[in-house]
């Protein structure tokens, strides 16, 4: 660790002379409070308001308020290359087994379309259970559900190498319940397309 700190300090001293940097916090997509903490040998600067910015030159930080216009001017090309945001779909199951509800069967078509249209799409299929049964049983069941949905997608023409199936058992309920509660909203498979 000391070595890392030391090299960081030396690196900072060496580079501070020739590089200038700018960091700007953007509004978050979901509108939630967010922040960036900028640390260097001298201490830290917290950017916690949209468009809060800092420029760094010769080891000196200058805080300033940027704007949508400035960000667009300096970072427009960069931001335009940001990949499309991942989207997430939830499919539900009939009690106990791995048969999709009719509504969820229908939703599969939309998902297939999105997988086909996104450039270099990748898909993570994540299975979940309610809390009926043991943790081990539910780990197995959640993976089976994820695999059955993955197989459905493969059968419908989605290349298998785009897909991975994961089981998260009962540890990530959509609706928190006591153990052994039959909660249909928790018997689900999430499909995350990125």
């Amino acid at each position, binding site marked *: 660790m000391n070595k890392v700190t030391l090299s960081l300090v030396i690196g900072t001293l060496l580079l501070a002379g020739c590089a200038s940097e700018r960091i700007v916090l953007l509004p978050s997509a979901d509108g939630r409070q967010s922040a*960036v903490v900028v640390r260097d040998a001298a201490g830290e600067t917290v950017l916690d308001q949209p468009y809060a910015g800092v420029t760094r030159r010769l080891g000196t930080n200058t805080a300033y308020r940027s704007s949508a216009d400035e960000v667009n001017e300096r970072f427009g090309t*960069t931001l335009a290359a940001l990949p499309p945001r991942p989207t997430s779909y939830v499919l539900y199951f009939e009690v106990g087994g791995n048969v999709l509800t009719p509504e969820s069967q229908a939703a599969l078509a939309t998902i297939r379309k999105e997988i086909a249209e996104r450039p270099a799409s990748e898909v993570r299929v994540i299975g979940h259970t309610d809390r009926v049964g043991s943790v081990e049983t539910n780990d197995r069941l959640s993976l089976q559900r994820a695999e059955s949905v993955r197989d459905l997608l493969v059968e419908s023409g989605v290349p298998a190498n785009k897909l991975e199936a994961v089981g998260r058992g009962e540890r990530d309920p959509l609706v928190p319940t006591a153990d052994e509660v039959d909660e249909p909203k928790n018997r689900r498979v999430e499909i995350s397309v990125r």
Partner: protein
Amino acid sequence: MIKAHWGALCALLALIWASPGLAGEVAGMIKVAKGAVSIERAGKKLPAGVGSEVEVADRVRTGQDASVGITLRDNTLLSAGPHSLIVIEKFAFDNTTQDGAMSIRIRKGTLSVASGKIAKRTPASVDFHTPTSVLGVRGTEFVIEVDGDGDE
């Protein structure tokens, strides 16, 4: 008591040891590419485009008028503008537990970031490095610009 401490220490050491970021592990994929984009891996310069995998230890470089967008496995989005050099120093993400860690460095150019699942779950295990500072994130989107000639 002492036993418990040893246990904790060993667990900690195991964690550090097992930790992330072996070169060659897939960290993400290029989803957007414009102009000359290349990946430097194990001393070789490989042309890169939409669909190219990005691995731990890769250096992603863009030329004049070029840009690149990468989605990491935890849904972190990165993009770099012209004349940029970005290094994936560390990336690990466990699908099942959603634990992970990442460390990304910008040597020059511009980088924009929309953080993903690792930053949401364990923000302390995510950092971004510029030539002179380290950035920690708290559920965040931000941009960085580095002027200078930090090529290596």
